[in-house]
């Protein structure tokens, strides 16, 4: 878990933030984390920092970010992240949203922000696509930790140490420290506050993804069974012009299981020309 020293202020809210690659002069990369904040030990961070400056806040209630009173809906998180975009000292920001954070990033992109330049969604949740008796998104709170662990990783035996993704409960008793457990418990409680019901989606979001106007890349771990690649393909088709790419040998967290392939995909996307029609 990261030290509490570095903070980011967004309006009245102060968030813990992890920064990497400052002063590189490259793109500003705002990482919107999934069920747990980005670990400073995550191997993809240094690779990604070669392509831009990483700004990775912890959501309110996660890591060492305080949870304001009555702050418990996706509406709150969307407006908080619009405030984070305001606060980032740059004209153009690329948002990368992971899993639950992919949902936040998609909502922010629908809302729109003048600084939002590009969008990367990595195995995001957030939309309901299947029928009423089809579960699109594994229920993170009602499913056994062992089953979540099987579904979340291409190879659960090769989970990177110190980075906790879906199924993290199964790592208790290994090298996990007490302070890590306290933080994980806090993250888990906060995730539940925001996403218990409807579980990990906004029923209305799919109607509005057409309003995303920035170039978008949707990355998916080929072995993800928390949200499957089929769900990912259908999700990406709702975003105008979005490119969908699979990462082999990865589950729900390709940035953790295949950091090099993940960063290569992001770098290639950042270097692409913006193919949007220029305004007249």
């Amino acid at each position: 878990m990261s030290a509490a020293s570095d903070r980011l202020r967004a309006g009245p809210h102060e968030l813990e933030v992890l920064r990497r690659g400052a002063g590189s002069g490259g793109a500003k990369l705002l990482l919107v984390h999934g069920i747990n904040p980005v670990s400073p030990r995550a191997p993809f961070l240094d690779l990604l920092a070669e392509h831009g400056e990483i700004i990775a806040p912890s959501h309110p209630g996660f890591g060492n970010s305080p949870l304001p009173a009555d702050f418990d809906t996706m509406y709150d998180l969307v407006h908080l992240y619009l405030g984070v975009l305001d606060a980032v000292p740059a004209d153009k920001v690329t948002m990368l949203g992971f899993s639950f954070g992919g949902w936040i990033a998609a909502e922010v992109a629908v809302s729109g922000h003048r600084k939002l330049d590009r969008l990367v969604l990595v195995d995001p949740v957030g939309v309901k696509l299947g029928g009423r008796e089809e579960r699109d998104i594994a229920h993170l709170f009602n499913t056994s930790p062992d089953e979540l662990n099987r579904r979340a990783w291409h190879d659960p035996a090769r989970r990177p140490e110190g980075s906790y993704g879906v199924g993290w409960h199964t790592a208790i008793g290994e090298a996990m420290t007490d302070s890590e457990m306290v933080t994980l418990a806090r993250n888990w409680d906060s995730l539940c506050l925001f996403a218990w019901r409807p579980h990990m989606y906004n029923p209305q979001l799919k109607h509005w993804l057409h309003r995303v106007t920035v170039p978008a890349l949707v990355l998916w771990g080929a072995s993800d069974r928390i949200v499957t690649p089929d769900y990912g393909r259908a999700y990406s088709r709702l975003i105008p012009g979005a490119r969908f790419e699979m990462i082999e040998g990865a589950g729900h967290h390709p940035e953790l299981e295949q950091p090099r392939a993940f960063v290569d995909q992001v770098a290639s996307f950042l270097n692409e020309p913006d193919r949007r029609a220029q305004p007249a």
Partner: protein
Amino acid sequence: MELWNHCENPYPFVPNEVLEQAESVRASLPNKYCDPKIAARLYDEVFDEYRLCDDIGIHIVTNEHHSGINNLWAASPVITGIVARLTRNVRILSLGTLITVRPDPVRVAEEYATIDVLSRGRLDIGFVKSGATEMVSGDANPMRIREREWEAIDLIEKSLTSHDGPFSWEGKFFIHPHVNIWPRPYQQPRPEFWAATSDLPTCAELGRRSMVNTLLFGGYDRTRQAFDAYKKARVEAGLPAPGEDRFSYMAFAYVGDTDEEGLRIGQKIAWFLTVSIKSAPQFSKFQPGAVAPEMAPQAWRTGAARRPRPTNLDAEILVGQGQMFAGNPDTVAKQIKEFRRRVGGIEHIIMMTRQGLVTHAEAEKSFTLAAREVLPQLQDLPPLDADETAWLARRGAAAE
């Protein structure tokens, strides 16, 4: 003192090999293992036990749990409504419907007002915070359930006590712009409120509100601590000391002809602990909100989400811990009187007797003996020695 019969109407007929293989006997066990013909017989038997209790002066408690072998009372207000018409004399406590799961407390208030009228004012209303598998079965967010429970209680109370046309409620958890229940309750201003909890801040709030505080199987020390928190909160709020009628305790109980019979049949009740609470980790220790984050390392490493339940389930041990009252009528009366002394006074003893593998006939025998030979010994008890209870309180505080 008063005796109450609490039966959860369990279903102990699922094959052991099925229960052993199941990750949880609540929330996810398929209902193909519940034979409705057996369930129908169980309902008949328990309602007959309630009729017996009505004749002999033992009050009745109903509750509800969902989707599991431990309880076939799917809706406490439904069952309580039936009991209201089956009985004529005793009080009926719904302990309770799961107000943190139900979306509209106004409907709950209306159901309870209806039962109060049906029973001509014999209803007591109990509240439970719930949690664990119930959050899953009812798809209720397990976070902030304490705050949700209090807002539900406040809205139910206002619904029961407002008589001048619609009022509006726009709370944090519940919204109802047009509240105006019919009928209004038979008892004025409203039926008695109870809550089941051993959480000390909650006990303190019950004290400030003068609600009846009941504990479930807490044993001597936890119960004493809870009641002391209740009393201390009243002192601090400048309220008068509570009577013993503000305190209640639920224990496993079996009254037999002999001590041997009491303990032998009492042992069957332990099924509640050994079998009926088996739950998967995602429904218990890993459920959000189950433990405060700072307590997570201890809970997760040891496997217990809350304070550990008793692990020694021998009936004599349970009796020794104050979690079971069992034996012949004189023995049980002595155990209850000793419990009253050690917790600093209590009016209501709730007996969980028809539990686990205890049969209909065995349950009726125990209730009959309890009413005929135990209850008279619990009447007109002398006041507790104030010096002695103060000493016990200090000893309990020192042991913490």
